């Protein structure tokens, strides 16, 4: 038994007062000399004995009354099981990100853990309990070999993998998640004693089970951490209620320890808790104050050219109730260049500010990983201060310009205007659209084409078989070819190639046509109309071939007379685009128009991109997973998944993954940041600690949930109104949990019973002390 108001226990000393008075009064019974006692005899003795008994009884009553009064005022509570009666308690602990706020030098979660530990300490040995967390744990705890066996038992058929994080003992790493944990058991036999490993699972929640093993609950409590996932209190309460209803114990209670963030309490509590007793302990979060957070970051396009500077936008929102201080938005992009900073003025509460920032596209990686961060002094909540996003980098395409007609005059080369369009002279202000090289047709057979992405045939007449085969193979391997027929090219020569996307027909040289329409649905022409506008019509020519597109080809543009101007087709994995007119001024006016430069650059960029769909994944929110197709050529390789810990240090955290025949799955990302899903070529033993050269990786950017950013808490009255009357009590966390836990067990009303007993004792004492009226008047 414990007491809530221990100060009143000192009042128990008052119980000695009646005794002292009794002793003093007894000593002071007057001694009366009397002539004789002959008339008193037995009656008086009985009367005396009776009186003495009554006096003693009165004394006992008065002592008992004072003891009962003091005990009652001391508010005792009895939390031990009464006979066979025991209690079942489920502690629902809020480990959502909002619990990372600090009060009195500790996080709210630390306070909550103290409260939960105090609850466990108050339970009797036979009481059963369980601890549920409102958010998924961010990391699997580390276990010893023996603990892993117990955990596996608890997981029971859930996909589980074994990781040795931070340990280079690779031979025991089994990152693949499997429902059958036999492989882990086998590996455990080889695991050295004393080493620790992490169990990773797709669903880290173990089957719910009430247990008397309070020590284990306490251990799991000590290992628990704040999650990056928003809390789902409703769901957790429902699960807790369902668990409690499996118990037939006399005492069944839900204990909810949370900061009671409003965003988590939009709905009514689950109906499943009806009829159960709930003790809600608030960890008293600090006042919402100001909380600046990043609501979103966006870039104008999924990809940008290397060396280009694009403008991104960030939405900075003040989720708090006070105007913010000046803050700084820092954006770090890629692995090159310095982060850019933007100073922000104070933001009104509830308002958002759209902030533009430059993004220099200077990454050596195909996908530039970016991180934006808002910093404000005394920002109480850092959870929403970061935003992770990506930008695809279009590197200058390695392009080989093949000049079909040799010329001593550079300007006379068929590739002259193409080269100028792709690699403008210094001072023009334009970036290189491609890494362009030139060669003569005669040198083509000796040229190693694998290093190029695009092959541009300008004014190339007939091709010998070897050249044709080389070009065909080049395209079939996934590269691209752009063909501009020369002024001296003939239809037969072109058709003889055998891989053009259209049948080349007669050549018309007198009719004037201009580029009238473009197929904006095709990726090759995307954005051209927007960039060129009416200038597209300036692409005119009086000399062109009539093209008859093949069945699978696509007409990218048409002349004013309706004939195709550009036709795209496929060769194997690659693409080929055939122009109806040449790329030299001698063939058409195209090279003389500014629109030509844009058209060529656009086409080269299009042709130079990967034939496969973009690997850029849409952004995720914490808790969501991601998946990617496994390239056929890498199917025999080694899957791996990572979280980028530090881009600067190229530090990665290996994670568990799941695999199907064609898909590689990243289980739910439990913290924000950049993730990589990779397929390593070849077979690797153990855990792959970092992406290896040549691996195919898909980045996934995971961000926080904005739900956690609004830090206002539900008031006690609002909370009480949510639950059925009389079923819930709300308490504030205190370092002394004793008064709070008074309601934990049956017996919390003991003090009332004791005071009622004291009242009964008082009435009894009064009745007993009442005497018949004196007869002395006679």
């Amino acid at each position, binding site marked *: 038994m414990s007491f809530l108001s221990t100060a009143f226990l000192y009042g128990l000393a008052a119980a000695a007062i009646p005794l002292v008075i009794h002793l003093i009064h007894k000593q002071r019974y007057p001694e009366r000399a009397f002539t004789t006692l002959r008339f008193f005899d037995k009656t008086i003795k009985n009367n005396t004995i009776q009186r003495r008994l009554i006096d003693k009884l009165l004394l006992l009553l008065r002592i008992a009354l004072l003891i009962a009064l003091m005990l009652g005022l001391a508010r005792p509570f009895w939390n031990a099981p009464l006979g066979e009666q025991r209690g079942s308690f489920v502690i629902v602990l809020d480990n959502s990100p909002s619990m990372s706020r600090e009060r009195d030098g500790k996080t709210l979660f630390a306070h909550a853990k103290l409260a939960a530990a105090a609850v466990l300490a108050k339970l009797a040995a036979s009481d059963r309990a369980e601890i549920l967390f409102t958010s998924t744990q961010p990391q699997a705890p580390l276990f010893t070999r023996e603990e892993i066996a117990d955990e596996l038992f608890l997981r029971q058929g859930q996909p589980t993998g074994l990781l040795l994080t931070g340990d280079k003992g690779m031979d025991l790493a089994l990152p693949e998640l499997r429902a059958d944990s036999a492989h882990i058991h086998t590996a455990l036999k080889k695991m050295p004693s004393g080493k620790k490993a992490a169990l990773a699972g797709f669903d880290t929640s173990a089957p719910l089970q009430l247990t008397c093993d309070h020590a284990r609950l306490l251990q799991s409590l000590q290992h628990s951490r704040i999650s990056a996932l928003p809390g789902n209190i409703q769901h957790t309460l429902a699960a807790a209620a369902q668990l409690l209803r499996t118990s037939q114990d006399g005492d069944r209670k839900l204990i909810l320890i949370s900061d009671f963030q409003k965003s988590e309490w939009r709905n009514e509590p689950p109906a499943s808790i009806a009829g159960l007793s709930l003790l809600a302990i608030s960890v008293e979060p600090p006042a919402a104050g100001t909380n600046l957070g990043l609501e979103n970051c966006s870039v104008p396009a999924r990809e940008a050219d290397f060396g280009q500077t694009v403008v991104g936008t960030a939405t900075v929102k003040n989720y708090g109730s006070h105007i913010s201080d000046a803050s700084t938005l820092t954006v770090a992009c890629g692995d090159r260049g310095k982060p850019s900073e933007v100073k922000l003025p104070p933001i009104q509460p509830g308002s958002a500010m759209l902030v533009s920032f430059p993004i220099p596209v200077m990454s050596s990686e195909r996908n530039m990983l970016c991180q934006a961060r808002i910093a404000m002094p005394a920002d109480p909540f850092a959870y929403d201060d970061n935003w992770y996003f990506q930008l695809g980098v279009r590197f200058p395409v390695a392009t080989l310009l093949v000049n079909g007609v040799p010329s001593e005059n550079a300007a006379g080369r068929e590739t002259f205007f193409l080269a100028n369009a792709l690699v403008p002279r210094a001072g023009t202000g334009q970036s290189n659209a491609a890494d362009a090289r030139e060669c003569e047709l005669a040198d083509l057979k000796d040229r190693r084409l694998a290093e190029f992405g695009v092959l541009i045939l300008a004014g190339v007449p007939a091709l010998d078989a070897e050249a044709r085969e080389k070009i065909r193979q080049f395209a079939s391997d996934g590269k691209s070819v752009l063909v501009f027929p020369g002024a001296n090219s003939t239809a037969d020569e072109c058709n003889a190639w055998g891989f053009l996307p259209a049948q080349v027909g007669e050549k018309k040289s007198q009719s004037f046509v201009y580029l009238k329409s473009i197929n904006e649905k095709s990726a090759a022409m995307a954005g051209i109309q927007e960039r060129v506008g009416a200038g597209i019509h300036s692409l005119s020519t009086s000399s062109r071939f009539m093209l008859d597109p093949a069945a699978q080809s696509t007409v990218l543009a048409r002349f004013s007379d309706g004939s195709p101007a550009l036709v795209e087709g496929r060769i194997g994995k690659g693409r080929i685009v055939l122009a109806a007119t040449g790329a030299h001024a001698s063939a058409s006016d195209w090279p003389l128009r500014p629109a030509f430069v844009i058209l060529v650059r656009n086409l080269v960029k299009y042709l130079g991109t990967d034939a496969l769909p973009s690997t850029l994944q849409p952004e995720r929110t914490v808790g969501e997973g991601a998946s990617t197709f496994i390239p056929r050529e890498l199917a025999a390789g080694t899957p791996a998944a990572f979280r980028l810990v530090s881009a600067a240090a190229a530090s990665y955290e290996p994670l568990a993954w799941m695999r199907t025949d064609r898909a590689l799955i990243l289980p739910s990302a439990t913290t924000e940041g950049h993730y990589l899903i990779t397929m390593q070529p070849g077979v690797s033993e153990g855990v792959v600690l970092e992406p290896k050269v040549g691996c195919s990786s898909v980045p996934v950017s995971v961000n926080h949930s904005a739900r956690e950013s609004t830090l206002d808490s539900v008031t006690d009255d609002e909370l009480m109104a949510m639950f059925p009357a009389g079923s819930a009590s709300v308490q504030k966390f205190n370092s002394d949990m004793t008064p709070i836990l008074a309601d934990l067990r049956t017996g919390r009303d003991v003090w009332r019973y004791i005071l009622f007993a004291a009242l009964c004792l008082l009435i009894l004492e009064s009745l007993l002390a009442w005497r018949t009226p*004196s007869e002395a008047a006679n």
Partner: protein
Amino acid sequence: MKSGGSRFLDPDILSRLPNLEVAARKLVKGAFVGYHKSPDFGYSVEFVDHRDYVPGDDLRTVDWRVWARKDKYYVKRFEMEAQLKATIILDSSKSMDFGDGKLTKLQFGSYLAATLAYLLIHQNDMAGLVNFDSQIRTYIPPRGSRQHLRLILHALSQITPGPATNVPAVCHHLAGTIKSRGMIILISDLLDDTEKIMHALRHFQHQKHDVIVFHTLDDSELELPYQELANFRELETGTRVAVDPASFRSTYKSRVNEFCSGLREACLKSNIDYNLVRTSTPIETVVTNYFQFRSRRAR
């Protein structure tokens, strides 16, 4: 206890009188004031016979009826005619040393004894004193002189309470000791075996004594007026018992009344004058009332 009227001596004043003689004189005087005529205490109710009148006899003793019949003068001869010999037996046991009023029973008894002795000797009778507790402490045979009166008064003033009482044994002894017929005046609280006391008193009667009993009790003994629980200590034995008087009073009073009634009836049956005397009653009243009683009996 204050006397009922100014004619009675306040016990406070009584106690401040220089000696018992003075007190007795005043008490007698006070008794006479209330009585209005000289008491003839010496007349015994026992008429013995007649004798011839001789000059000098008190004319009041002439039996005028006989003269009317016989035309001769005869005087009545009473038992005590010669001189009444009264022995005052005063109980001075421990129980007599009790009193919640102004006087203890012993003091009251002493004053009563002194008054009676004074009265007897004043009217030329003889008075003696016996003071006893468990045994006789003082024995002064009856005499009639003033010197003797002073002796009695002095003895009374020297009385100290003794231990336990033994009324029957003392009375039996006195009954065997006092040969000549006379008056026995017993002043005691009679807190002894009633049967034995009566037996002893009848022994006196057997010896032809006239026995008068002044049963002296304090008001507290009769009423038990106390309220609070107290340890009652018996004076003679020292026995203590805690008693709640309030709850016991009615029973106690009935027992005391029964005791007194028993004694009265026994004395009445034995032709013994029984007088229940409260120490709160002025002594003069006691004496006066007894005078009246005796006078009524003498007719």
